[in-house]
């Protein structure tokens, strides 16, 4: 089990030559260790195109997001067009091509939370952080996401920061939550 690697913008400065299973040489803008990790993930699923979604899950777990270069490498290994990989990545809301913030904020907008005022809470986060849903603050500290029902309907409205759950959040409480993480 290799550790989590964060792909920083600098990572894309590298150029590596890789030989795929078809014997064709490819150059990818990723450093060797990341390419090796992608290969390892794809290998663990036998490079089976049917496992594309599992491969992407694993890659996103590892890297935090799915930059174009990673998708390219995955497509290469599974022998499918990269357009198809991108089509899958953009279809499922769980996959992201933007790195999440250090403290990803997820606001539940499931029905139970909605009827208990999640919309206003979301608006407040957007106002306070000055970013839209799906974006990350320029300093990389926070990102906002919406999700549908974490199943904590009894605590509605629910906000998650990372894995921590905040229940019965009111718009007034938003500032305080953000303050907990801005030191």
């Amino acid at each position, binding site marked *: 089990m290799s550790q989590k690697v964060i792909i920083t913008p600098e990572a894309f400065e590298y150029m590596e030559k890789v030989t795929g299973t*078809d*014997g*064709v*040489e*490819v*150059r*990818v*803008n990723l450093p060797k260790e990341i390419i090796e990790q992608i290969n390892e993930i794809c290998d663990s699923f036998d490079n089976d195109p049917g496992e594309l979604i599992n491969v992407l899950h694993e890659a996103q777990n590892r890297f935090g997001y799915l930059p*174009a*270069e990673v*998708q*390219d*490498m995955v*497509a*290469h290994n599974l022998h*499918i*067009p*990269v*357009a*198809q*990989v*991108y*089509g899958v990545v*953009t*279809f499922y*809301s769980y996959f992201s091509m933007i790195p999440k913030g250090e403290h990803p904020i997820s606001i539940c907008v499931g029905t139970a939370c909605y009827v208990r005022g999640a919309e206003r809470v979301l608006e407040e986060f957007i106002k306070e952080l000055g970013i839209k849903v799906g974006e990350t603050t320029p300093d990389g500290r926070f990102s906002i996401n919406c999700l549908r029902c974490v199943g904590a309907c009894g605590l509605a409205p629910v906000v998650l920061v990372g894995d921590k759950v905040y229940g019965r959040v009111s718009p007034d409480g938003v500032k305080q939550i953000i303050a907990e993480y801005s030191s």
Partner: protein
Amino acid sequence: MIELTIDKKKVRVEKGTTILKAARQAGIEIPTLCHYELCDMGIENKPGGCRICVVEVEGRRNLAPSCITEAQDGMVIHTHSIRVLNARKTVLRLIISDHPFDCLVCAKSGHCDLQDLAVQFGIRSQPYVGEQSRYRKDTSPSIIRDVDKCIMCRRCEMICNEVQSVGALAAVNRGFMSVVAPAFEMNLEDSPCTYCGQCVSVCPTGALTEKDHTIEIIRALSNPSKTVVVQTAPAVRAALGEEFGMPAGTLVTGKMVSALRELGFDYVFDTDFSADLTIMEEGTELLQRVRGYLEGDSNVRLPILTSCCPGWVNFFEHNYPDLLDVPSTAKSPQQMFGAIAKSYFAEKIGVKRNDMIVVSVMPCLAKKYECQRDEFKVGGNPDVDYSISTRELASFIKQANIDFLELPDGEFDDPLGESTGAAVIFGNTGGVIEAACRTAYELYTGKKLEKVDFHELRGMDGIRSATIDFNGLELNIGIAHGLRNARKLLDEVREGKSKFHAIEVMACPGGCVGGAGQPFNHGDSGVLGKRAAALYAADQEMPIRKSHENPSIIKLYEEFLGEPGSELAHKLLHTEYFAKSNEVTIHLQG
């Protein structure tokens, strides 16, 4: 057999027939939009997405999409009840509500399936107003993507993936923002697109169209200091008439020549001439390689692959960078023509290279890209300046108010207008290799070929093979059209399992007669067969049917090139290939 009732008519059909086809058998044409089919080619697109073809099936809760619903015994179907009509019109209005209203200036106006439906259903108002999905416009040397006009019929995605196995296009995003696009919504130019243009030929709307070069040609023609030379590809003459209402398969060579002359081209030449030239070079290369192989030269690569199709060339450059030494190095007829026109011919008539404009009329969109490739330029000046499609030529003729149907038959100019029957069949799948066999046979055996027609090489099967007896030498010939078929043969070559000595590949299904620059076939695969038949008929009627017997070609070698494969021939008529997949770079635009 099962029996069902459609609009009160009893129909008996095979089990497994869709309602749409059952209705057709009963003479009822149910309107469709996303459905597309070239049945002879085994090509079918039926995602069931547009819901225009819905019909009412008695006893069924909701309406059934007729293109994907199998007819069942005893079904009672209504194809135009109020419920059906209201549903169709509502869905049509919905599609229109997410479609730009610029029909008047749309490249597809008049050929647009969506527009046709709006006319058919008398859509006069649009009650559904709201946001329209908007995307970046993307212009490549051959194809323009204006996917605001995409209606998600998925035909292009199907062609690009299932038929061509190119994989440049896929459905991306979800819901209202979903659209067919290259990976990362990057430009086609940066994608593995081969510019085969099949996506353009199946697109029902103006979302995918060719890059139109007519205006550059009008400019060139109106510039008195330029000598404008035009060449016309074999397949164009078999299809151009369709744009003027003539039945498919009408050969309009003479009228086409007259029209071009009326349009003001200084010289009207024929790509068939350079097709003959291609056979001389490629045929020679084939024999050289085969001889070398027979002599045990381990450096010889077999099979030899034809290289006249630019979509195919792009395809192997992208997908088989490890096999770049396998295809013939011979340039395509379009580029051979340009090279000869701007050297041999320019010299002959005393025109400087830069004062000559070479225009090609092609059934193809990849040719637009091909003529822009750097290796086909001398000092920045391209051998072929502009390439227009059959459709663009038709439109140009109409703009110039030329009454095409009344035109007398004209003759090509000399010397680059003389050609043989071997050249004209280049437009059909199997035609190039047949032409090559005619010449190679005689060159190899030194005997006269009695049976000129190689029927074993003809047909519409995606992959065909034949063994030709060269007087004891058994030559295994493979033919593929459609790039997925080509991929199968190429994978065998990569694995070293190919039994072939020579393989002809055409990117488009049917070969150039089915090229992406040809008049739209609207799913009528009979059209391709008729065009192909017209070209074979033209071959039959030609006095000379072997490339090496073309007097102008013989003269060209005598006066200028020397031998096939000579140094000068190599310089002018051969090329090299470049790996395109060895660098995965992504150019995202903000």
